[in-house]
């Protein structure tokens, strides 16, 4: 029994991969496809046309008209014309007062442009965007944190719900009944903090179903989800990339990982699912943007709450999970 315990301990100690020197060939392959597709879409724009964008600032004096490039310029480019404060602070763009638009997604036509940030009045949508990005970034960290001998497939994350107290990513892990220790959770949190300190931009790309299948051909769960996602989104799959990590999400996301402030991965809980040959674990965490300052005690309360199992829907083999459609950009060109 003793020897078993020590073995178990030793196994646990080696669960994480602290320094990943080489990217796996799989990640390289995915990134190559992503980069090629991105440059192909950029070249497909052809002759550059100009569009005028009416920026609506917080005060009427700060309104501007910007002449930008159609299908090339992004809201982030517009924000950079307006100064560092605007470009660093903006979380997500609002086109024509109704469509949320990722900051690094090219604008297709003349429109009115507003920028939202964490302290803008009624920031419900911004909070949701932040929460979704947290799930996405946690997926990026989790997929790189474990050693190569532990097989791992990202499954999905439910629609972001700030009121549940934690953001969630469901992951298939080849570990029987793993209960993370406090130090292991601390390591995971630190990995996420380090990842976010790299100040990586979060890129956006709409791809066809085939390209998405090609990118996620090694992931059995994502390949199952892709047809349904594409059906609800004009046969397109929206991808996001932070660093080398690529994932499917409706978006929008935060423009850069440097928006993240306090981050804690609070708990990992094994779920009871009927998904064949897989142990699905629910990774839960809580985070705050850099610009919102909270004292340690209050943040501790949030951390304690994030340790409880998140009530979001548990993935099963029957239901194909995908995020809610509320954020599908339905911009008429």
């Amino acid at each position: 029994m003793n020897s078993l315990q020590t073995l178990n301990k030793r196994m646990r100690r080696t669960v994480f991969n602290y320094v990943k020197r080489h990217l796996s060939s799989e990640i390289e392959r995915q990134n190559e496809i992503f980069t090629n597709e991105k440059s192909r879409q950029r070249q497909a724009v052809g002759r550059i046309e100009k569009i005028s964008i009416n920026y609506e600032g917080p005060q009427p004096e700060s309104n501007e008209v910007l002449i930008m490039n159609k299908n090339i310029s992004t809201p982030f480019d517009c924000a950079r014309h307006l100064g560092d404060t605007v470009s660093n602070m903006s979380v997500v763009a609002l086109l024509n007062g109704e469509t949320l638009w990722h900051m690094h997604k090219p604008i297709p036509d003349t429109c009115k442009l507003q920028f939202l940030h964490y302290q803008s009045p009624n920031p419900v949508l911004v909070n949701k965007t932040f929460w979704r990005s947290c799930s996405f970034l946690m997926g990026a960290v989790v997929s790189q944190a474990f050693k190569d001998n532990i097989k791992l497939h990202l499954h999905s994350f439910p629609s972001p719900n700030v009121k549940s107290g934690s953001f969630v990513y469901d992951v298939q892990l080849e570990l029987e009944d793993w209960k993370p220790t406090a130090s292991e959770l601390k390591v995971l949190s630190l990995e996420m903090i380090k990842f976010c300190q790299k100040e990586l931009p979060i890129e956006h790309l709409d791809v066809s179903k085939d390209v998405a299948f090609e990118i996620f051909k090694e992931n059995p769960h994502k390949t199952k989800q892709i047809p349904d996602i594409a059906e609800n989104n004009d046969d397109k799959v929206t991808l996001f990339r932070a660093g080398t990590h690529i994932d499917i999400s409706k978006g929008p996301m935060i423009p850069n990982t440097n928006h993240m402030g306090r981050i804690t991965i609070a708990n990992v809980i094994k779920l009871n699912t009927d998904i064949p040959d897989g142990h699905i674990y629910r990774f839960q965490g809580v985070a705050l943007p850099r610009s919102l300052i909270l004292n340690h005690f209050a943040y501790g309360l949030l951390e304690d709450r994030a340790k409880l199992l998140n009530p979001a829907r548990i993935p099963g083999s029957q239901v194909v999970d995908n995020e809610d459609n509320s954020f599908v950009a339905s911009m008429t060109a």
Partner: protein
Amino acid sequence: MNQAEVNKLMSQLRVSVKRLRKFRNPLGPEERLNKLRKTVTALIKHERIELNYPRADESRMYAERLISDAIRYGDCHKSTMEMADYWLIEKQLIHKLFKVLVPRYENYTISYTRLLNAPRPYPGEKHCKAVLELRGNPYPSLVKDFHSDRSLLHNVLLDEARRAYRSEKYKEIAAKVTANLKDNGDKTRQVEANANDEAKATLTSDKTKKVESNEETTT
């Protein structure tokens, strides 16, 4: 052991009093006080001023002392009035001190002024800048208010955490109450049963007594 702490019995300023600075002055120490008088007057007049940090820090202590004396002794106290007359160059501000600021600060438990670091203009002078203001002034706040807007992310999270905690507590209380009710029910049943037994016992004892008395009478 049980003696009162002497320093609690004395009036004390609510800002930390540091060693006073020697402002370099060709006109001597009196001119130093004249400079501070100008600043204190400006503070009482405008309620928010921006200036170099050392002078703000220094004049803050004098302003605090002036206001606390005005609250403590009122406007019929001779030496307080003299001090107000000395520190406030513009004499109409003496009225403001006693009629506006004293009512405002009467029930304060914190300092009456607030000192904030201000950004240093670059390129420009190397001196640190500060903003000195009276609390409760009518201007918009200089520091961000993270508390009152409950739709901010951390406030949403905190409110939900509070709600979850409360619902848990209510559940606990409800569980306790039901447990108590059960216990009480059992106890009352027991008590009733005991009472019945006692009543029966007394009845029987009475009967026996009666029987005995009857026997006595017969004999």
